């Protein structure tokens, strides 16, 4: 009895600490969320931190399709579509490339494979700023400057590093005998990938997709550098919006816009988070 009591006190202490720190961590989000339903006069008149006196959803509709950002009064919606048009294809392409790279690096040993792997992974550690000028040149050469296609191209290539790392490490757990059996059965590189390796991959593909989607959605530097005006992704639009705050404080609408911009990654986390943890620890073959 005594033992259970101490145990439960420990539990209480642990939960209290965890809740305390998550409150601190979530406070900025809570403030933004609360402000998104407050009237701007109410915010200016009292404080940026406070509970709404009445629930106003008008901020949300204004933020979505009528608020002026950079002189375009169509709200944040067009920029969210831009971001989706960049993020979805780039996520799919970089994940497929990563799976293919990881497969060949893990299961088809060739001379210098570890060196190639090290080069690919180095992409993760190079600062983005360093690559701005090379990318600018490449995009200009390809005629992709200031297009969503250009950003898809950049993120597909850049995202490959992480995707390759994830998939290669996952595929290392596939027993080499499986490949030998497939060789004898007469399957080649792509048939083995398609019929044997890919069906084993959902756990790691989910992880990679979540990772790529989140980082490409949240990416800002390339977005703001290589696109302008109506072509910008939502992260870049948020910056324009933030810089307006000094001139025209519309805290409620701006907060709603921020929440809208964060919504896709939040949804991915809420629905995909558990697969993420499971996939990172799952083995390829039971």
């Amino acid at each position, binding site marked *: 009895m005594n033992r259970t009591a101490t145990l439960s006190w420990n539990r209480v202490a642990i939960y209290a600490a965890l809740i305390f720190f998550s409150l601190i961590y979530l406070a900025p989000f809570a403030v933004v969320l609360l402000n998104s339903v407050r009237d701007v006069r109410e915010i200016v008149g009292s404080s940026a931190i406070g509970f709404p006196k009445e629930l106003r959803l008008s901020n949300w509709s204004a933020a979505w399709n009528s608020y002026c950002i950079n002189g375009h009064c169509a709200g944040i919606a067009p920029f969210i579509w831009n971001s989706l048009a960049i993020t979805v294809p780039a996520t799919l392409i970089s994940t497929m490339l990563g799976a293919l790279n990881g497969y060949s690096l893990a299961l088809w040993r060739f001379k210098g494979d570890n060196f190639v792997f090290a080069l690919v992974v180095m992409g993760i550690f190079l600062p983005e700023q360093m690559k701005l000028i090379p990318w600018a040149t490449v995009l200009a050469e390809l005629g992709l400057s200031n297009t969503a296609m250009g950003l898809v191209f950049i993120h597909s290539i850049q995202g490959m590093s992480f995707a390759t790392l994830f998939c290669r490490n996952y595929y290392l757990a596939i027993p080499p*005998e499986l490949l030998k059996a497939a060789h*004898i059965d*007469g399957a080649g590189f792509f048939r083995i990938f398609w019929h044997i390796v890919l*069906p*084993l991959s959902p756990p790691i593909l989910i992880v990679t997709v979540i990772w790529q989607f989140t980082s490409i959605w949240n990416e800002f530097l390339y977005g703001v550098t290589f696109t302008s005006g109506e072509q910008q992704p939502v992260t870049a639009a948020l910056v324009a919006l933030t810089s307006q705050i000094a001139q025209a404080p519309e805290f409620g609408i701006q907060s709603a816009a921020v929440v809208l911009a964060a919504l896709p990654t939040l949804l991915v986390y809420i629905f995909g988070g558990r697969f993420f943890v499971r996939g990172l620890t799952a083995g390829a073959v039971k």
Partner: protein
Amino acid sequence: MSALQIANVSKRFGNVDVLKEINLDIQSGEFVVLVGPSGCGKSTLLSIIAGLEKATGGDIEIAGRAVNDIPAKDRDIAMVFQSYALYPTMTVRQNITFGMRCRGVAQADQQKALDDTAKLLQIDHLLDRKPSQLSGGQRQRVAMGRALVRKPLLFLFDEPLSNLDAKLRVDMRMEIKRLHNRLGATIVYVTHDQIEAMTLASRVAVMHRGEVQQFADPDTIYDKPANLFVARFMGSPPMNTVPAELEAGPAGLVAVIGRGSPDELKLPLPPIEGARAYLGKEIILGIRPECIAESGRSFGGDRSSVTEVSLPVEMIEPTGAETMTVLKLGEHVILGRLAPDVRPTPGRRHGFALDLRKACLFDPKTEWRIQ
């Protein structure tokens, strides 16, 4: 007809010679077992035959066709792996037909081959299951089915029974032997288990340190091991080997153990032609444990070949089927297999019957058998 010819095959990994000039000529319909301790190169040799690894030197011919530069899939072979290597996301049916699908075999032929194989191996009721839903023995059968369905020139087995429990291993061993008798296929089978080698093989290649020590039928391997390694590796428990001196007695060769000591023992030997050169010299005498039994035993009804001796007993290990007995022969410890109801007292001398008709003599320097 020669089904598989291995000529001067060698394999180097960096500075290590994994295989040194291997030569094996395997006839059609033979069941050849490559046996040896881990690291002897047997699995590497099998991979080279399969085309999964390249030899550093030498030639391989399958059914008279040089296959050095032919990829695994075109060698007309099938392989069963130790881990079974079943494709985990495919059903049993898809596992078995995958090779045929890769080779573009017509649908109707696929179905017929699948039906025949499934019936032969009694796995027809498992066709729609995934490998993870099968027991170890069932997986083993599916793995064999995947090989059988191809009707290849050559079957390669890489330690196929090592992952099964003891009882199932014995069952599957018999099953494989039955299949071989029925299909008359040519099989190369790798194992480290010398019982599997003895029971399955029509010929055994004993390998050690990248070399074939002996390539012969199981009886020859057992009764006339080429050298001390084969003598000690094949047989469980292994052959007893003790140093002795060779001399000529009135009725033929005699091995003297512990000359000059109070326990000096003189054992009459069968005639061995090459032994003349060793008269008066040291040799190594090899006696199988089953040739050492309780006093009074007549081996195969022939009393004339029995030599009765008195030896001190060190320890006994009753197994139920027999009493394993550790004896002192001079300074050396040897093992005998006594009848189960005979339980000599450790620490005392007891009478033993020795059957020396199959005794082997080895050169102590070269370790090769004196013929």
